[in-house]
Each structure stands twice: as C-alpha cells, then as structure tokens.
C-alpha cells in the first residue's frame, strides 16, 4: 500500500497564524516524505523552538521538539545512533543562525547524512517579532520599534562556509518546487541544508507573500513581476563532482557566492550546490568501526540472556595487567 500524505498528518490542532508560510513548509515535508514512500516510523522530525518548532507535532512520524538552537546536535545524535532513520531537522532563523549558530557551523563540517530545513522569516515569530539574524540592516518590520541595528546573515553563504554538501533554497508558497528540493535533500548522502523563504504575515510586513510575488511591481497588463525565480539549471550547475580541478571548484564557489548574494529585485531559489567529493560522516565511522551499520547503537544487544554485560573486557584488562 503506497504511503499517502494523509499518513503523515496528526490530529493536533495547528495554532499558526492564518497565512503563515510555515503551512507551506509543513505540507511540503509531508508530501516529500509520502512521495518517497517512507513509512512514518522510519522518519524522525526534530525541531528547535519557535513557531516553526511546533512542526513535528503536526507530522505523524517520530517527532522531537527540542530546545532553542539545539535541534542539530539532538538530530545528529539520533541519526548516528540509528542510521536507518530518515532524519529531518527544522527550525527558525533565530534558532538556527542565532542561538544555534555554533551548531550550524559545526554540523556542516561533520557532514552527517540528514536534512536541515531553515524557516527564514526574518523575525523571531514566537516571541513577537524581534529581528532575527537574517533580517537585513536598517530594515524595520512592523514589530520593530526602530530599524534593525545588525546586518543580516546570508544562510546560503554561511552554510557554504560551514561545509554543507547540499545547499538549496525554496519558497514556502511554491510547494511543488519545495517538495522537489526536500526530496533531493533527503536523498543526498551527507548534510543537506534547505533555506526556505517563509513569510510571517503577522510580524514581517516587508518580506511578505506579495513582496516575494512582486505584487508591488505589476506591469502594464497587471501581471506581477515576482522577485523569487528559479535558478536556471542550464546556466547554473550546482554539482561539484569527484575529479574536478581546484579551478573548476573555485569557479563553482564564485558562482555560488554571486548567486547567493542576489536579493531585492531578484531572489533565486533552487539547488545552489551539491558536493559529492566529500565523504559523509557514516562513511568515516566505518573506517573506524567497520561493522557499525550492521548493529548500530540503537539495535545493539548489550546483555546476554542472563542480563550479563555483552562486553568481554579481557583484552582491555590485559593491557592494564601488572601481575
């Protein structure tokens, strides 16, 4: 029986504001999981704290709503102890780039096989609209008493510096496109990062659905000129493959940077990088513990039938023996 989107829904009442971009992301995750034919129990969705942090409660899969900023280490722990799990981490931009910034950076270079979806709404939603780390300098959303005093971080750029091996950006109201990104992100072996532009109609009156959709710049015929556009797969190739020369790779990085810096009039979405030249963390574990995947920690029998420890300490004792 094929898995249906419905299988990933729960009966929990959803208390996001009407029109919140989080709905689009939630639906996309559910659709992606269903389309990948994963069974709910094979998936664990981890989240941080914030409006976006409530996501797991709305998904019928193992759901771990963690602490503010800590979603990545929690999720990594789950994935490494049970590598068979499909692990998706979600969280807000404050959660991921602010209080969780250190984990974000260090998770990149670890390259654990999981997917991190960042709900970028430019504000701290659940605490009533303070500026998030992605909000640009000088911008004043309706929730701010004064223009933002800090420069905004570019999550794509930061993820590149951190070492994520799959980097993409989606838009909460382009669900079809977003589903595709999420599926590819999950399929990628290694740490994949998907930034999602997520309008927060309640607090962010600058980066709204209308703004992303270009409703403020209609042409003569009344057609909006959307700011969000899809990176053209012909002119922008995100793949970094084994065997590429350093120059080629540098070229890719340079392209990435100029593409990632686009903002304002044109805002690209799509896959920005897919790097297949770096081993994932599980491959690295296997170099240390070759039998790791056969009985990962979650599946390990640690006692015999008489509840005695499975470990035979004799060789360790021998090292310490003094007589």
């Amino acid at each position: 029986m094929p898995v249906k989107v419905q299988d990933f829904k729960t009966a929990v009442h959803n208390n996001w504001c009407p029109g919140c971009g989080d709905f689009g992301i939630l639906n996309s995750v559910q659709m992606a999981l269903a389309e990948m034919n994963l069974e709910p129990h094979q998936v664990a969705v981890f989240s941080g704290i914030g409006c976006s942090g409530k996501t797991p409660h709305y998904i019928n899969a193992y759901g771990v709503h963690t602490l503010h900023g800590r979603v990545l280490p929690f999720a990594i722990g789950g994935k490494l102890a049970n590598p068979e799990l499909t692990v998706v981490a979600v969280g807000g931009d404050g959660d991921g780039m602010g209080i969780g910034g250190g984990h974000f950076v260090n998770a990149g270079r670890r390259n654990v096989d999981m997917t991190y979806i960042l709900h970028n709404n430019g504000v701290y939603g659940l605490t009533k609209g303070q500026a998030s780390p992605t909000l640009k300098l000088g911008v004043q959303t309706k929730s701010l008493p004064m223009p933002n005093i800090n420069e905004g971080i570019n999550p794509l750029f930061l993820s590149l510096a951190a070492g994520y091996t799959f980097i993409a950006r989606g838009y909460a109201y382009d669900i079809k496109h977003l589903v595709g990104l999420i599926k590819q992100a999950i399929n990628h072996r290694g740490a994949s990062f998907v930034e999602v532009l997520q309008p927060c109609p309640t607090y962010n009156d600058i980066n709204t659905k209308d703004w992303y959709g270009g409703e403020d710049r209609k042409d003569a015929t009344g057609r909006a000129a959307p700011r969000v556009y899809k990176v053209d797969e012909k002119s922008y190739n995100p793949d970094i493959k084994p065997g590429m020369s350093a120059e080629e790779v540098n070229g890719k990085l340079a392209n990435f940077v100029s593409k990632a810096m686009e903002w304002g009039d044109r805002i690209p979405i799509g896959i920005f990088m897919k790097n297949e030249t770096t081993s994932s963390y599980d491959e690295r574990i296997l170099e240390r513990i070759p039998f790791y995947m056969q009985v990962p920690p979650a599946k390990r029998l640690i006692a015999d039938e008489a509840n005695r420890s499975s470990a035979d300490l004799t060789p360790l004792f021998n090292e310490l023996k003094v007589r």
Partner: protein
Amino acid sequence: MSQRTNSLAWLLGGAQYSGVESSVTLFARACAAGGLHIYSQREYYSNIMGEHSYFQVRVDEKPIHSIRSTADLIVSADAETVFIHGRNVNPNGGIIYDSKLVDTPISKVPMMEHQAREEILHYLKSKGLGETVGDMIKDAEKRGVRLYPIPYDELLQKMASGQMIQLAQGRRIANAMAVAASLAVLNYDIKKLEEALTEIFQGKKKIIDLNMKAVEITYDYVRKTFKNDFLVQLVPIATKETRLYVGGNQAVALGKIAAGCTVQTYYPISPATDESTYLEAHGVFPHTREAQDVSGAEKGSILVIQTEDEIAAITMATGATLTGARAATSTSGPGFSLMVEALGWAGINEVPVVVQLYQRGSPSTGLPTRHEQGDLRFVLHAGHGEFPRIVLASGDLEECFYDAMRIFNYAERYQTPAIHLLDKALASSSQTLAPFRSEMVKIDRGALLGEREVMAKSSNGGFKRFEYTDSGVSERTGLGTKGGIFWNTGDEHDEYGHIIEDPTVRVQMMEKRAKKLELAAKEIPLSEKMNIFGDPKAETVILSWGSTKGAILDAMEVLKAEGVNVCFVQVRLIQPLPSEELRQAVINAKRRLCIENNFSGQFAGWVREHTGLTMDHLIVKYNGRPMSMDEIVNAVKQSVKGKAPKRIVLTDGE
C-alpha cells in the same frame, strides 16, 4: 630509628611533559610485579610544558586508598621539586636528587609561582640559610633526612660511551634511572624493574637494553655509594592474584563499556577528557560468547564523538538515547554548567541520558587540574524548574567501575537523567586492583520495549509514551521502532508527548515524574545507597561522600590502633537521598562529623534539609588538593578531644 617493610610514601616531582608520569608508571609496575599494592595520586598545573607536576605514591602489602601529608622518600627530577617538597619529607626519610643542581638558586627556577617562592625564601631566611637547592637540602639534612645526590650526567656518560643518545631517549632513560635509584635506596629487587621495563617497551629490544643498562649502573652506584639502611625496605611478596594498575578515568570507561554504553559524546575538559580518550582508543572490543549466542555480533563498539561544545555533547547524547541506545557524556564543572538547560529537557522528556561529572577546583575556570567536591548542590538543583534526577557519587576506583554500570540501570529504570559524580582525585589516582567483574551488576533496561512488544501495545490506537501509571514509569521505545511513534517536547505535554497548557494535565504530569524518584528510593537496595564502615555503635560518626572515602578508611585504621572508634557512613546515592536510613545511622552517635572537599559543607546542608540534623563538626578542605589520611586522623582526634572548632579547615598539600 626503626625500619619498616613494605609501607612507603614516595613522591616524585618534575616539570610537566618531562616524563614524570612514565617514571611513576615504571615504579608502580616494578612494585606491583613484586606483589605489592600501589596507590598513586597526581598533582599538576593547567599547563602543557614546564610547570611543576608530582605524584604521591604509596606502596604497601595490603590495599591502600589515600595519600599521606608527608613522604618517606622524595625523588626530584629538577630543582623546583626540592624547593616545593623539601620540607615535606619525613624526618627519617630521604631525598634523591641530581647532584648537579645543588647550586641552583631559587631565582633560576622559572616556573615557580610568586607566592610559593616568597614563602620558601622567607622560610630559608628564617633558618639563616641561602637561596639554593643546596640550602634546602641542608635544612632537610638537619632534620635527619638522608640525602641521595646522584650524578646522573656522569652515570649517563659512562653508560653511553660510544653510543648516541637522543634527547627524548635521554629523558626517558633519566626517568628510569630515578626509579632505579629509588629502588636501590629501598633495597628492592632490581629484577622487578627490569620486568617492568620489558613489559612497557614490549619487544623494542634496543630501547630495553639501553634502559636496562642505565638502570643497572644507577642501581649499582646507589648501592655502593650510600649506606643501605633506609627507613623503608621493599620486599617482593608472593601472591597469585592477578592485578591491574588502573586509573580513575579508565575505571569509569571500563564500566561504561561493560554497561553497554554505545555512544559517548564529549567536549575536551580536565579532568574528564582522559575517559573519552581511553574509550576512543578502545572503541572496539569483543563480545562474550554468551552474548554472541544471543546477538550473533562478535564485537561491540562505542562511538566516541568530540562535539563543538558541551551543549552539543549532552543534546547529542540525548538524541542518541532516544533511539534506545545507551549514551552518555562526560565532563567537568564548566561543561556541566552549559548542560543544565538540556538536562531539564531530558528530565521533562524522561530520557535516561547519563552524565559523568568530574568535579574540579571551581568556581568558573577555577583550578582546572586541581581537586574539589564543589558541585554537589549545583548538580542537585541544576536546571530551572523541578524534575527528577538520580545522583550517584563514587568513592573509589571500584565504585567508579560498578557505579558506571549501575547509573545506566537507574537512568533507564526510572527514565530520568542520571549524574555520576566523580572528581579530580578519583580521575588522577591509580591503584592496583583485581580485575573488575562486570557480571556483578546485571544490565537492567527498565521498560524499554522492542518492536514486537510495541506493536502489541499500540495496535489499539497509538503509543502513549507518557502514559499515566501508578509507578510513574511509562513504557518507552526507540526512535524508528515500528508502531511506537511518539513525540517529545520541552513543553509540558500529554501522554502522547504533545504540547499542553491545561492545568490539570500539568499537575498529573508533574506528579507522574516526581513519583519515579519515590520509586527509585524504594527499589534501590540500601547496599547501593550507602556503606557503613567501622563500629555502628561508635561515639563518633563520620558522614561523607565521594572520594574522601579512601582517606577516611585509611585514617580509621590508624585511629582504631590509637583507640579511637569511629563509624563511617558513606552515602553514595545523593538523590534520592536515603534520608531515613541515614538518620538512623547517625542519630545516636555522640559526635557527628561531616567530611567534604569543599568550602561550605554542601552535603551537610543537604542532610540537614532532609533530616533536620546538624553536624557537630564540619571538616572541609578547599585548597584544591585532596585530603590525606593524616589530616583526617588529626581532625578526628581533635574533635574527639573536644577542642576542635565547629569548622575544621584542612590545608595540607603543595
């Protein structure tokens, strides 16, 4: 002056990174090879190279558990050792030193701390002496101390005639020579040293030969040059026992492997790091035949993950624990401070994550490589709000091993974070011990369900991870188990794990969680909660916890010999505290002493809160050094004589 046999307090000091540690290992192995017992304790600076480090080593025929305030024989690898420890030699003891150092003035000892230098200068001046190593030695000699100047350079030259010796090698050889000199003074069989060398440099014949030669030359030199009548004599004794020489971090690590801990996260920090380093180096090990029969897996492993900080360490371990694996992290005070928020998350989500906490000199960065038992109250109350936790404190290396096994059982049985309290004194002590017997602690996974069991349950409508039960314990399963889908959240939640703010559910959940601690208090056998040593009817009762145990036990023997009868109540389970049993054990004593390596008498406060009982004397120490047996003997005698202040502060140690 009467000689003693096989009862020695030895001290070896030198600059960090100069091989002090390997000298001690050599010495310990040589003694152990002769059937003798060893206890050693290391002191060192938060520094990589150059600062003063030393080991206090005791050798005896029976197991010993503590340091002494003074040493019988001091071996100095440098001038600083003589200055720092010169006054701490027993009047009939001895000092072995490099003869070429006698003219070194204290001003030429670069790393010595200002305050120590001033104090020593003041002392020498008060004795009318100059400022050199020679002066310090002269002072010792006046007190009756035997001097053993060794011309290491000459001996080395003699031996190396024709051979090239590299610096590093030379240093290693010098270490062996210092040990050889010690054993010669102690009249011990040099063969045992050679056995130790052979074991340490397994198969590296050239190195062994080189060391052997140096050792023999030195041994001969000492035997020929000095009178052979030192205070202490070491004599090998016959025994068939197998013995390990184990350090505290190793004992814990071994216990964790035995416990089936399969994921260890850590962020480097003294004095916890060595546990993780050991685990990483021993991350793959065989399974017993019986275990293989069940699982088919020939080998086990522990995945050791160095994280970016301690917040990641505990949250990652928690994530791993959620899959059903046993996982832990290991840290010290500063790291634990960062883990506090996540501890609460594990508490409200009833996650059996384990933390090994090695206390050290605090607050803040404090004295990173020194000893203290200063985190007790913090650990008991760490985290905003209220949630149950288990706190278990080990008193010696055996307990380190078995408690490391038990703490996982407690954590899983009561589904609550559990803290294994350790400290620097345990971490940096080593001891000869019989191999640990992991079968003494059975693995108990509590209400952890596998797939088949969960499927049976959940068929009738979803799995209630936080189901209300009489005991407070609900069944749990691991992430990824078919049929067991649950939710976790740091928010208050319903039986499925979904956020609620309903006041009634809130109350039920608070009570559910609290009940588990009551259950633990009921179920855990008294023998695992506390130990009572000595005469339960004694007039004087000592209450203590953690690593003071060894010094108290050793002191009790001396006190007994001097006619002072003492009962010692060692509490291991700090939370839930066995208040009633503890009350019973101390209530009838005429004199209640609480002994702790901290400033405020933290445990005494905890006991007063839970029993209303006040201590007659608080014996505390907070100078960053562990207690010696002698300090405890003195403090107890003082209090028995009725002349002690309410608060007795111990200050021995350099």
